[in-house]
Structures are given as C-alpha cells and as structure tokens.
C-alpha cells in the first residue's frame, strides 16, 4: 500500500512538474514576445520545512523550472530559500503558493 501510494505520488509529481514547466514557459514566452514588460520581479524569502539534501534539491529544482521563479540561494542554516520571482504581484501570496503547492508535494512524495 505504501509503495502504491509512492508510485501514485511520483506519477502525480511528474505530471505536475510537466504541467508547470509548460505553464511557466508560456508565461515567460508571452512576456518575451510582447512589447511591454509585464514583469514585476523581486526576491522573496521562503521559510523551509524540507531539510535533507534530496528534499532541498527537488524543491529548488522544481522552483527553478516553474512559473517565473528561480532559486537564488539558500541560507547557511538551511532554514530559508531565496527565490527570484518574475511575476511578483504579492510576496505573501507567492510565499504561500510555493509552500503549499511545491513544498507540500515534495514532502508528500518523499515522506509519504
């Protein structure tokens, strides 16, 4: 049962990853080919729950490859990930989205 859930979560994770990559591409591409800049870039601090190397790697990787967000650096004590976002309308909203959508998925996948 546990193994089955892992397979399901992995599958869901891969689909989510592919979807987010497509979505992010469209958004960044749209901004690249239209004349005005819609970007409202900025750097936000994401407090982390993930702790092991693998968890941080997966999360940072996911963040970098998805909607207008790019992992910049992680704090020395590993408590905070600094993320550059391209469409930062509301830092709080962005923080919440990353914590819920991405970190939540990574945790569910690796910790079950």
């Amino acid at each position: 049962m546990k193994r089955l859930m892992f397979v399901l979560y992995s599958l869901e994770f891969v689909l989510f990853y592919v979807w987010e990559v497509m979505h992010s591409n469209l958004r960044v591409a749209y901004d690249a080919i239209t004349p005005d800049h819609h970007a409202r870039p900025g750097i936000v601090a994401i407090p982390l729950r993930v702790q092991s190397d693998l968890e941080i790697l997966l999360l940072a990787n996911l963040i970098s490859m998805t909607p207008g967000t790019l992992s910049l650096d992680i704090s020395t004590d590993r408590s905070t990930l600094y993320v550059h976002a391209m469409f930062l309308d509301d830092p709080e909203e962005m923080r919440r989205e990353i914590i819920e959508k991405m970190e939540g998925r990574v945790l569910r996948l690796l910790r079950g």
Partner: protein
Amino acid sequence: MIEWIAAGLALLGAVLVLIAGLGILRFPDLYTRMHAATKASSLGMSLLLLAVALRNPEAMVWMKVLCGILFLFLTAPIAAHLLGRAAYVHKVPLWEGSVADEIAGNYSDDHTVLRGVARQSGTDNLSNTQG
C-alpha cells in the same frame, strides 16, 4: 503520422529556443534574463530531442534522448542558481521595476554566510513530526 508529430515537436522546440533568445535580449536585468535562459531553452531542447527520437525509433536513440532530457533538467536549475547567486554576490543590480528584495542585508560582509529569516509559526508543523 509520426513524421508530422516529430516535425511539429521540432518546430515548437525551435520556436521556444528562439523565444528564449529573444527573452535574453529583451528582459530588463540579469535575473529576469535567467528565467528565459533556463526555462524556455530547456523545454525547447527537450522537444527537439524528442523529435529526433520519434524520427529514429531505436532503443539506443531513445535512451540517449531520455538521458539528455534528464540531465538537462537536473543541471539547468543548478547553473541558474550559481549564476544568479554569483551575480547577486557581485552586486549586479536588480531592475528598477523590481518590487521586493528580501535577500538584502542577509549576507555577511564576505558573502560566506547567508542568514535565514525566522520561521513563521504554522509553517513548520510538519518538520517536527518526523522522528
């Protein structure tokens, strides 16, 4: 049929890489350019590789293509992270339209230590449940 799908993927991939190039040219600062450089180009390259594999459906070709895509997706974010970090440490300015910089002031003077922000209550309730 496969021919057409392969052609479509190749075309789409090429267009994405072109857009990535345009983005690098047009975005206002280094950090936003990194977005174009990592995302659009890795997806574009993956589509091109997939087109090659569809056109030459042999096990070895598929294997190489899948490895190529895997490593592209593993390495592109790391390169982006290192470039972004190096730029920030060397004080490459953010675009004046930027709305937030929560990293400011958190590096030590020699940039070897980066302070974190305090964890907010409610965000770390899972980390303590794992023995």
